[in-house]
């Protein structure tokens, strides 16, 4: 396996996620246009862009929730092709957090978190539950393990969703507007968890409208518009010294 390809293994060392010329259409709508992006291990990437620019679609191609028609995506050395086995491998490596939480309403918090570790990772139940409790502690709600999602506040639900994704011990965490469905007073508790996660060295891709978070936590910011990457840079470069007209327009609308 090591000698499989010098090129990939070298690239792999540097880049955990590597997208090259990714194109995607919904019918005739060209939603991703030649997107090329590499993400290093431990990097925190924030994706900004106006509504409908293809941010969600892009982040969902990373774990195969959306198929791409052209281009290549490689995650941790695995090529995201149409092979079901590969997609399942990649889904073990990537955790995803959704805007609408998408917790399983018929299961307790504990069951929500341990389901995939037990059935996908084949962990013994006791071990999975121990890990789940640790994760609940980490996201600050260890006392809610036996409740149902419907009994929790939005902020608590989203933290459970983060714990559920982390329970698979992924290499990469994908966040699609994790705070957009939350009341203002709950946004902070979720962002705090994400900040802690970023500090711990997790590789993260976050679509968000929280500029404060982007500025504080992001190693790099990517700006999407009409399915294209318009500009990439550190928060300082992008916020204080934007080069592209479209970036300036977007920032003027949002700040």
């Amino acid at each position, binding site marked *: 396996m090591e000698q499989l390809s010098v090129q990939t293994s070298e690239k792999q060392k540097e880049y955990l996620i590597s997208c090259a010329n990714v194109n995607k259409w919904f019918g005739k709508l060209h939603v991703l246009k030649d997107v090329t992006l590499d993400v290093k291990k431990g990097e925190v990437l924030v994706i900004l862009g106006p509504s409908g620019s293809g941010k969600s679609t892009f982040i969902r191609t990373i774990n195969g929730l959306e198929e791409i028609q052209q281009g290549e995506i490689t995650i941790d050395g695995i090529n995201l092709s149409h092979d079901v086995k590969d997609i*399942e491998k990649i*889904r073990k490596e990537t955790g995803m957090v959704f805007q609408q939480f998408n917790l399983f309403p018929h299961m307790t918090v504990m069951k929500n978190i341990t389901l*995939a570790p037990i059935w996908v990772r084949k962990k013994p139940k006791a071990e999975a539950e121990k890990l789940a409790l640790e994760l609940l502690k980490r996201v600050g709600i260890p006392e809610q393990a036996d409740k149902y999602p419907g009994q929790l506040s939005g902020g608590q639900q989203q933290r459970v969703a983060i714990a559920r994704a982390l329970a698979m011990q992924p290499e990469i965490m994908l966040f699609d507007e994790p705070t957009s469905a939350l009341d203002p007073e709950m946004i902070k508790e979720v962002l705090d968890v994400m900040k802690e996660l970023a500090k711990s060295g997790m590789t993260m891709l976050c679509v968000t409208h929280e500029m404060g978070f982007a500025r504080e936590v992001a190693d790099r910011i990517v700006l999407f518009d009409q399915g294209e990457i318009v500009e990439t840079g550190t928060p300082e470069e992008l916020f204080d010294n934007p080069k592209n007209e479209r970036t300036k327009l977007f920032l003027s609308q949002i700040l």
Partner: protein
Amino acid sequence: MDLNTEVKTELAPTSPPGVKLGLGTWLRKKLFNNWYNSILTLVSILVIYFMTKGIVTWLLTEADWAVVTDNFKLFMVGQYPLEYLWRVWLSLVFVSLLFGLSAGVWKGTILHLSSVLVIVMVIHTLVPFTSTNTKLWLVGCIVCVIGGYLAGPKLPKQKPFVLLGWFISFPVILFIINGYGILPKVSTNVWGGLLLTLILSIVAIVGSIPIGILLALGRTSKLPIIKYFCVIYIETIRGVPLITIFFMSIFMFPLFLPQGLTINNVVSAMIGATLFTAAYMAENVRGGLQSIPNGQREAGRALGLNPVQLMYFIIMPQALRAVIPAIVGQSISMFKDTSLVTIVGLMDLLGIAQSVKSNPDYLGSIMEVYLYVAVIYWMIAYSMSYGSQRLEKNLGVGKR
């Protein structure tokens, strides 16, 4: 808890708790608040008065229940041979025990239903027309319900144990009643009365749910052959009246069978009823599947669950929970519709009623016969409906 207190404080100024309307005010507000409601109220009172008067007079002076009491065994089990009647009783004892245990373990709804069962059995023990033998068996059943109720909470692993009991009860009871040659065989041909009605409906309901689930899944399949088979099956069955299905199953199934293999009418009716109900169950389940938001599928897939795990752990439990009311509704209507087998000549509860009524000894007792049969149907159908309403509440359907 929080919610309750909030609601109370909100309502406090308009209707303080504990204050009830006086009778006069209540009458004025609810029944005579304007002229046309007053007329409606008066007319309704007259109609109710004459109906009640008629029924009560008939019940007290004219009704002759001999037709029911004399033919009690026929109504219950039809032509089931007397010497093997203990097998039906044994089954009833088993079911009573399960009811008792469930009542002890779950309390609530199943306790209410068990109480009704006990009351019905006590009444049948006390009335003069039942034989001593019957009374003894009934006492045994009652003891089992009560004993089960007391013992239930003391069992180790109560819930799985009782559920397992219900699960095996169906094949066990079929075996006890039929015998299949291990016990002397009592052919389904002679099953009748309430026994036949119940077994026919339970077979149809229990059999149709898994078939319905498979059909619903098949209908959403990506493989065209499976998909169109399911669509055609479901739409064909749903376009045909049940009675036609019964005629076809009884007169046509035998034609398809290989030489030498025969199938009796009761089994044909069971197959027909099951296949018929399955098509409706499939549509109910499909509705449930469609009601699950796409986010649930995505979350499951993002966690790496494979399609089977996704269906089994995430989609199906939620879908079935959402359609419990529809499934129970379908079950109730199947239970009542089994009475159509009378037309193809089977002796179910209604079939027995038909044949008893034409016996010259009981000329003029039509009312009693049908009233008795109607009450039995109603009690069972209402119990199912009541159980499902409570189940729905307990499972919190509608709340997500």
